[in-house]
């Protein structure tokens, strides 16, 4: 392949990079106690939330930004960020999705997420919560889910209508002072999704949240809380995009999952935030804390992530396996191109007996990017019969990309088993030759090889997402092999 076609293909436009021009309700820049009070007041929150936020803020002030990730970025000025920005609404409270600003509905439609229920009939099995900058725009299929007893709404709404549930579970998995970015999120989080699946209920449809950052100076701090009671089952997906700006925006989210006895939560992410241009200008800093608690016996939490966007990704979806026989899973594809940096992986903390975990991580680094897997597998002294299997494979495309693995393995138990394997390779000349011989272009061959490399993870995604993710991978990589 000639180098000019390579260049053209690498510079594939980011098709979600447009900006929606709407009036917004924005608070002043900066962070202090007054700002936190203002956010809390704007959202008309119960008293305990304000206390929660202020406690987190106090802890955050005492903390310092983590320096251990294998990423580099200029210092972030936390006083230069707008912590709350919402589209202006004509009415205090919207009764239905039809009353949402048409410009916003159009935005989501453009992103391929039509919010009106009629339009979604063709694809009826997914309920969506759409989040635009700091607020939730609307949630579809609420009534239908309500019939099954499932609560699916924005977390602000949950604070109004189910404060007792939020109070009981919020911050139990990721405490306010857990880490720097989690503390920041706990202090200023604006919205996010709330899911509650009561005892014995299998959620009748896929739940999904779509995050969109629109404002160029806003940070997005969303908070997701999913609770699956005894025997409940749910599959949840999230997707994210942002416009192209020259500046970097901070996205510091916290996701908490709680699985009680025999519950099953599947959490899938396709992350496609704006990654910056080929020189590394602009893009989202994606600093996310995701953690699931397998509290009950035989419970299961499964994380699947496809990370293709963001200038910097710092993310370790984890499972704390407390209940006996509980299962944790982590399937990840992290693709970095140009100057993207990713330091991602998982933590599997085995506490209960016969707990099992599986880690499959596929890293693909192209261009001048840095891609690191960082993981922890810990076998506690009481985790008799616990097992872990980890596999981390990296694929390097081009000789300027970097792939690193930092697996931490800690065993305090002689009846636990840990296996870790990692490999690094590139797309072989002979593989490409084989394809060429059969009349398949180099471009198609690479995309087939990559999707074969990622198959183990793609298979874990819900159907529609898997196809989309596969397409996304080939699009992102087009032309990076020459």
């Amino acid at each position, binding site marked *: 392949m000639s180098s000019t076609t390579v260049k053209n293909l690498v510079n594939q436009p980011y098709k979600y990079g447009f900006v929606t021009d709407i009036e917004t309700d924005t608070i002043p820049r900066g962070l202090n106690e007054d700002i936190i009070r203002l956010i809390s007041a704007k959202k008309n929150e119960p008293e305990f939330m304000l206390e929660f936020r202020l406690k987190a803020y106090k802890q955050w002030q005492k903390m310092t930004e983590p320096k251990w990730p294998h990423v580099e970025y200029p210092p972030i000025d936390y006083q230069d960020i707008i912590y709350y920005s919402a589209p202006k609404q004509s009415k205090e409270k919207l009764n239905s999705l039809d009353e949402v600003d048409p410009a916003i509905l159009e935005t989501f439609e453009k992103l391929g997420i039509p919010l009106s229920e009629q339009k979604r009939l063709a694809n009826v099995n997914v309920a969506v919560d759409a989040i635009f900058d700091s607020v939730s725009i609307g949630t579809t299929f609420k009534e239908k889910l309500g019939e099954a007893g499932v609560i699916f709404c924005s977390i602000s709404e949950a604070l109004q209508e189910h404060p007792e549930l939020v109070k009981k579970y919020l911050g139990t998995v990721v405490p306010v002072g857990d880490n720097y970015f989690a503390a920041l999120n706990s202090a200023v989080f604006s919205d996010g999704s709330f899911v509650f699946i009561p005892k014995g209920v299998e959620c009748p449809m896929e739940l999904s949240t779509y995050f969109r950052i629109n404002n160029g100076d806003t940070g997005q701090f969303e908070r997701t809380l999913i609770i699956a009671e005894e025997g409940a089952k749910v599959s949840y997906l999230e997707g994210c995009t942002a416009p192209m700006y020259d500046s970097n925006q901070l996205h510091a989210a916290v996701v908490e999952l709680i699985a009680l006895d025999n519950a099953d939560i599947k959490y899938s992410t396709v992350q496609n935030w704006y990654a910056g241009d080929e020189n590394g200008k602009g893009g989202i800093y994606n600093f996310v804390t995701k953690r699931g608690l397998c509290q009950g016996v035989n419970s299961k939490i499964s994380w699947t992530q496809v990370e293709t966007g963001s200038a910097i990704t710092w993310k370790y979806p984890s499972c704390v396996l407390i209940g006996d026989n509980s299962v944790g899973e982590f399937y990840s594809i992290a693709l970095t191109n140009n100057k993207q940096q990713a330091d991602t992986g998982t933590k599997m903390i085995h506490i209960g007996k016969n707990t099992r975990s599986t880690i499959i991580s596929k890293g693909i680094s192209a261009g001048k990017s840095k891609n690191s897997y960082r993981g922890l597998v810990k076998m506690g002294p009481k985790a008799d019969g616990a097992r872990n299997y980890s596999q981390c494979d990296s694929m390097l495309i081009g000789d300027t990309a970097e792939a690193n693995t930092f697996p931490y*393995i800690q065993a305090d138990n002689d*009846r636990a088993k840990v296996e870790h394997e990692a490999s690094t390779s590139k797309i072989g000349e002979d593989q490409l030759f084989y394809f060429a011989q059969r009349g398949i272009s180099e471009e198609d061959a690479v995309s087939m090889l990559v999707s074969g490399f990622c198959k183990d993870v793609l298979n874990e995604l819900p159907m529609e997402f898997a196809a989309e993710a596969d397409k996304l991978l080939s699009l992102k990589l087009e032309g990076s092999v020459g």
Partner: protein
Amino acid sequence: MSPLVSVKTETNTYLSKLLKQFASDSQSKNLKELRDRAKSLVESSRLPDKKDEEWQFTDLSELLEQDFQLAPVAEVSTQILEEYALLETRESRIVFVNGYYSPELSNISAIDATVYVGNLKGLDEARQAKIVNHLADEVGNEKLFAALNTSGLEDAAVIWAKANAIATIPIQILHLSAPEESTKFSQPRTIIVAEKSSNLQIVEKYGVAGDEYGKVPYLTNTVTQIWLEENARVNHTRVQKEALSCFHIAKTAVFQERDSHYTGNEISIGSKLYRHNIEVTQKGEQTETNLNGLVTISDKQLADTHSLVSLNLPHGTVNQLHKCIVSDRARAVFNGKILVPQKAQLTNATQLNRNLLLSPKARVNTKPELQITADDVKCAHGATISQLEEDEIFYLRSRGLKETDAKFLLIDAFAAEIIDRISIESLRKRLTQCVACKTVN
């Protein structure tokens, strides 16, 4: 180790107390400058603690509680040699006691003129100067303890093979500690130079003279440096079998020129706290590095191996296998780093760490690390932690073996993978027995 910026006063006084004990005027002018530089590095440092990533699991606070005095010249009886000297090296061994050369115990009658085996002081001026130059380019992360060793450097064990020299018999360097009733520290130093196309087989052994002092804590802070010139081959086996009251802190630094082969076998059995930093630096193309490690610990022992292989040029090969057998309340730590920067294309690197946990309170912390920027490479690493398989024991018992015998057979097989890679027969035999006595009780 993190940058040595913050100087904690407590650990700093501790270090300067150790520094004060070194004789201020060295006999050799060349050495003096080197020592002074090392001294100022130690003075501006602090002892690492658990907050330092590289020392996260190895707690030095117990070391801080001890008031170590520099070990004096000591005499040990020749009987001790029966325990440590090998059949193959009866006429090719040098012995150091507490870091001081002992000509009476050494015997180098079987060594010809192409290889120098002895102490630094006995070496000719020209080569002495060369060594001092070599010593000046100390690299690596873990500088503090190596610098402490250099600060007190007076003499060292030296093996120097001239170009094309082929040593037909293995050479043994025996470093003995003769602990006394009070807490002592010694700082053995070993320097190995293999000139162009030479071939060496070396056994470096650390032991204790007499176990009647086995209960008094002592510190061995040792540094071994090995230079392999073009096409040289060194097979280096390092056996650490100190008393259980020993703090053994060691660094092995290897520099490899083009086409050289280095094989390092690390066997660690003794010491209550063992920390070994292995640092291999590739200085030419097409080098081959094999690192094998076997750690057998029990009781409350801690054995920590940190290895760093930095490849800088194409066609390098690295094979690493590190195995730990951990019983009782012991803890094994392993951190293996392999750096493959963009220039090191066509590197072939494998690293595997396997751990066998034999009791409920035994612990393992492992972190195999790969950092790769070159795309045309083959790199793989792995780590496992497991126990003796019930099924395997059952199988052996169904064949009429006692449970303890079955277990021993399996442990033995686990260790054999490393022991079998050692080329010296009597050492192999001895180690096999050692693993047995250590784990079956």
